[in-house]
């Protein structure tokens, strides 16, 4: 239902889908945004990371966390935003029990950044990129958490934990440039990858460190004005974001086709029923009465400071992927796989530096290392097989010390014990037999015990040679140097 449309061929009832995403990402810091309470609230007992600033006590004063401000500006730079010299914080006023103060400190009209863009994989054209505008990246504070309870008498109430309140929260507002649910998914993956490359957020959706709201509207093709927009919330996974948007597109199209009107509202995604339901209609729409935060002086970011922060940017996924494809002459698919995470890309490059063999490093990592990670659920920097181990294995192969048949066994042992491949080969006597005398006997045995294959060979059957090589390899438990075995077989058969 989210398929592409083509202007000109469309009947009057065909609509253009317009999607914009708002992403909230918790910034990784030691302390909260405006006070010194620890921001590592996960697992902490309720209300133990709380101070007068968190509670909004009269007389308490917020002071902003430099690391969180810098992380926001660095993220904005990675998303190609402009950084205005002057910015400030504002109070967003609303009453809800997750706010102790009755307002959230956020940024309204003068945020840290504006007018950027992001490129993401075009799901409709593999290998091609699409670009979406980034309206702004700004900084605010996270809210308290609420747990809803119904006791045995049927009474309902909520329990509030203020530990999360005040944790720095970055908001990345995207322009309404996305046209399908799959594009939204792809855009979201690109945002998450950049946040993780920068190390500014864990961007883990299941821990609540990465949240996404979607604004979805439909308009007849060719119409300049946007249709009434519906804000969809409560998506807890990438999959639910895509499904919720797909649902919303169909719901709105069906409603419009039936002659209905879309109401501007907030809808919540109900995952187990796979539908969106009304949360708040326009009548109850928020009236936030923003005003400048009087307790926080404005922020001036001089050009020199912007350039200093820009110089801290690591190589970003797109640039790294391009460089890998060029420098190591690999396909874009392999380059894409190896640059999934910054840690994996570094693992690859360290292996290349230590082994001098990029092709082998790419093969081992994309095939075996990723399989091991998938099977164990471990991160690349948690496994016992380091780049030094993998490079050692590659060198053993490149120098002919072991054969390709023995290598997987050596790898498995290195993965489970952390021993160096060189030591494993020595201890277990897995070294390849390149000794002509030792192999000559095995070759003679193979010829003597396989008369049919020998006859086939002499009759010119190409497969017979492979059979005889296999017999020798079996006899030497895979340790024979295949090139040498081949040569010796030919000598004895033809000689």
């Amino acid at each position, binding site marked *: 239902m989210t398929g592409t449309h083509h202007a000109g061929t469309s009947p009057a009832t065909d609509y253009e889908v317009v999607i914009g995403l708002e992403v909230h990402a918790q910034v990784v810091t030691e302390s909260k945004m405006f006070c010194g309470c620890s921001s590592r609230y996960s697992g902490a007992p309720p209300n133990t990371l709380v101070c007068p600033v968190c509670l909004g006590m009269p007389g308490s004063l917020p002071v*902003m966390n430099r690391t969180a401000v810098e992380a926001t500006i660095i993220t904005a730079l990675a998303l190609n935003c402009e950084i205005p010299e002057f910015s400030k914080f504002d109070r967003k006023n609303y009453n809800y*029990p997750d706010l102790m103060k009755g307002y959230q400190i956020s940024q309204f009209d003068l945020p840290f950044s504006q007018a950027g863009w992001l490129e993401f994989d075009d799901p409709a054209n593999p290998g091609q990129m699409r670009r979406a505008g980034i309206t702004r990246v700004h900084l605010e504070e996270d809210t308290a958490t609420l747990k809803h309870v119904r006791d045995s008498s049927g009474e309902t109430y909520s*329990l509030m934990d203020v530990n999360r309140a005040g944790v720095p929260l970055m908001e990345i507002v995207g322009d309404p440039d996305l046209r399908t649910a799959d594009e939204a998914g792809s855009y979201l993956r690109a945002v998450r990858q950049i946040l993780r490359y920068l190390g500014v957020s864990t961007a883990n959706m299941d821990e609540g460190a990465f949240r996404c709201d979607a604004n979805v509207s439909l308009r007849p093709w060719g119409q300049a004005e946007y249709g009434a927009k519906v804000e969809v919330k409560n998506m807890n996974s990438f999959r639910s974001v895509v499904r919720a948007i797909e649902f919303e597109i169909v719901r709105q199209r069906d409603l419009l086709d039936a002659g209905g009107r879309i109401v501007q509202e907030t809808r919540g995604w109900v995952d187990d029923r796979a539908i969106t339901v009304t949360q708040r209609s326009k009548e109850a729409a928020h009236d936030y009465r923003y*005003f400048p935060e009087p307790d926080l002086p404005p922020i001036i970011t001089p050009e020199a400071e912007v350039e200093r922060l820009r110089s801290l940017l690591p190589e970003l996924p797109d640039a790294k992927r391009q460089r890998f494809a060029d420098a190591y002459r690999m396909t874009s698919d392999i380059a894409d796989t190896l640059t999934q995470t910054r840690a994996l890309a570094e693992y690859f490059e360290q292996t290349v530096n230590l082994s001098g063999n990029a092709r082998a490093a790419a093969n081992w990592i994309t095939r075996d290392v990723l399989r091991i990670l998938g099977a164990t659920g471990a991160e690349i920097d948690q496994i016992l097989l380091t780049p030094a181990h993998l490079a050692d294995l590659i060198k053993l192969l490149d120098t002919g010390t072991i054969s390709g048949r023995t290598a997987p066994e050596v790898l498995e042992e290195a993965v489970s014990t952390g021993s160096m491949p060189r030591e494993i080969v020595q201890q277990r006597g897995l070294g390849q037999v390149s000794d002509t005398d030792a192999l000559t006997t095995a070759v003679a045995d193979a010829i003597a015990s396989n008369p049919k294959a020998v006859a086939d060979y002499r009759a010119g059957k190409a497969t017979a040679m492979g059979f005889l090589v296999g017999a020798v390899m079996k006899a030497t438990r895979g340790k024979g140097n295949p090139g040498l075995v081949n040569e010796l077989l030919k000598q004895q058969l033809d000689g």
Partner: protein
Amino acid sequence: MNLTPEDVDHVATLARLGITAEDRSRFAEQLSDVLEHFRALQALDTTGISPTAQVFNLHSVMRDDVARPSLPREQVLANAPRQEDGFFRVQAVLET
């Protein structure tokens, strides 16, 4: 500038305040006076003065990202009308 009783209702709703009909006309009058005072300020000639939200000549006041101890939980919860298992207990909140 006169606030209507409807304006007062709107502001009261946003502030989660329950007010009586009597309050409503009294607040409409008082809040109108406050706005009248700002109208007087707005009459000042501010030509050549750049807009500001701050009266202090400070900017970019930041602290290093260092965590320090928080309050003991008994103090955090000391003013709470109701508490339960270390949480603040509040009226049921429904996402409606």
